[in-house]
């Protein structure tokens, strides 16, 4: 995330210069949320693997061509799979992952409610 005030006027030194701040934000978001398949513990922004460099270049061109985030993510995942996405997709087989926390929260709230409301002081 960037603060607009601090984007320097001179972008000539940037490896991936953008004239439009929204494109810059989108580019940064995408490359940070993608996982490098070669250096699997790095995101696409930090990885120096040749594949990562290639993909960054591709994504840079696509962002400049005004492709949507959806389209670009699709481009990467159709070639490298969901593994390449740090943000797991919202689909039926990841339902457990995304719904799970809600379920856990509800269970937690029930526990709290039960303990505060229902429990009675009684000798055993």
């Amino acid at each position, binding site marked *: 995330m960037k603060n607009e005030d601090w984007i320097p006027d001179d972008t000539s030194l940037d490896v991936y210069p953008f004239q439009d701040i929204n494109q810059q934000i989108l580019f940064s978001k995408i490359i940070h949320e993608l996982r490098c398949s070669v250096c699997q513990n790095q995101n696409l922004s930090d990885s120096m693997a040749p594949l990562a460099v290639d993909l960054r270049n591709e994504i840079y061109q696509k962002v400049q061509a005004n492709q949507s985030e959806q389209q670009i993510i699709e481009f990467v995942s159709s070639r490298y799979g969901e593994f390449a996405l740090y943000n797991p997709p919202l689909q039926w087989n990841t339902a457990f992952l995304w719904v799970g926390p809600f379920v856990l929260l509800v269970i937690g709230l029930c526990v709290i409610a039960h303990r505060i409301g229902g429990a009675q002081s009684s000798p*055993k």
Partner: protein
Amino acid sequence: MIPELGHFALILALCLAGLQCVLPCAGIFKKNQAWMQTARSLVLGQCFFITLSFLCLGYAFVQDDFSVAYVAQSSNASLPWIYKISGIWSGHEGSLLLWVFLLSVWMLAVSLDSRRLPLIFSTRVLVVLGMIAFGFLLFLWATSNPFARFLPLSPIDGRDLNPILQDPGLIFHPPVLYMGYVGFSVPFAFAVSALWGARTEELPWAKWMRSWVLAAFGFLTIGIALGSWWAYYELGWGGWWFWDPVENASFMPWIVGIALIHSLMVSDKRGIFQSWTILLSIIAFALSLLGTFLVRSGILTSVHAFANDPKRGVFLLGFLLLVIGGALALYAVRAGLLPPRGARGRNDDAKIELFSRETAILVSTVFLLVGCATVLLGTLFPLIYDAFTGQKLSVGFPYFNAVFIPLIIPVLVLIPLGPLSKWGHNACRDILKKIKIEFIVSLVLAMLLPWIFAKTVSMGVVLGLGLGIWIGLGTFKSAFDKIRQKGFWGLSKGAWGMISAHGGMAILVIGVTLVSYYHVERDLRIKPHQVLEIADYQILFQSIEPIEGSNYIGSRGYFLVSKQGKQVADLRPEKRTFVAQGIKMTETAIDPGMFRDIYISLGDPLGGGSWSVRIYYKPFVRWIWAGGLLIALGSFLGAWGRRK
């Protein structure tokens, strides 16, 4: 010779641990005092032999004994001596020996301290610890012998320590972190002992457990903060938390540790939430063991993973299942039998007032546990997904941030309210009266400050900043009230501990919020003599020179950082190639500050005199670790205080 001595000492320790499981335990069943008392001597013996073993491995490293396979793997003749020592725990076998060594230290401490406890209870604790020690020693001996030799053909020189690990951080991070991980075995042992004797006894185990939990938590906090700080300056990407599986494995016991500390407070002072406290003790240690398992089993892809061997994974998992499964089975059977405790023989399920401190703690600990469970879910989900679909999936920071942060907000809101509320009373009106001003001030400042300094205001910043200021002001208020009541020197160590820990939390939250929203990153292709801007700073890339170190060659860049014409810093990042394995590494240059870091990372030459350089502006990032250290300080103060 020395390695063999070390190996032999290990075997002796294993035998003593085995005895420690059996003999005092038999003493408990046969009510034989003498047998029970052997536990202390056995612990002393174990500690002696494990220390000896550890020193032998250290000797092998320092003497460059490359006939020992582990030394050859992790060291090199040209390695600076300090890294030869820290190389001891850089790999799987040695770090496991470190684990066992630290366990023996904790066991010794417990053994010495337990003289004031009833014999039967302290014996139980030492038996449980003995079982854990036995399991790990067996694992070491059977599958991960650090003293295995390369005879008859031993290498002339070692393979070298991974250059990323050749760093001061490596010296401290693992030992301190392990002190925390291993330390949670003590509350675990206390909890199991309490369950074990639940049918027949009524003991103030909560009071006894307190210092151990706080001490372990303190170490774990420092360990995690060190790891975060190390990753920040070492890896070159300016990140301080990655939601990496092994990081999560240290974070989860930390979260549960917080819940445990507070639930324990209720059990100690009010005699309720006992079964909850015991469950949390078991879960905290279970997560410690899980972390140990994850990093060595190859089951998840992680930066931290050691070289993997399925045999080791099987053993560790079996051990985990046995220890935790056993404890949870005991819990299922005995938790219901925990005797009424506290002033009026209060039943564990006694009614609690809606706006009392008990409720605040109940709600916080439940939300913390739910948060921990979601981190566990996210960490293990790739595994679950693979098991069901055969496909690979990643779960990274977007998930964890989206799911964990909302869950933690109620906890953060409650932090200042806890100390201001009372035990057993509905203090709703009182609290609101006391804290009204602080609440409003937090809200106002949260909206005003970003607008003044950054000229933008976003929901996330207001929320995070607001919560941080809220916690800070609320803690300040309760500190002020306490001091007014008891005088500055009248405050107990526990009270100071609370102030430090909660205050540290405030600083941590503010740091995390501000650095996440206001950090700036520039990825550049620059030549010497070019100037670039970041935030309000101008940075001149002066020159680039070749360099040479004891085991590497590389290049160093010279950067001059100025603000409004005045020079602020002289930064010299390096790019190194380590000759032994040809690994390349970047040595970042950071200008640290209380309110911002300027961070430069040198990449590769891009041809034509240009270099790839990354520059980061990181506001308030040091607040994260400062907050962590204050939390740890608070923990240690609490551990030190009130020993009755």
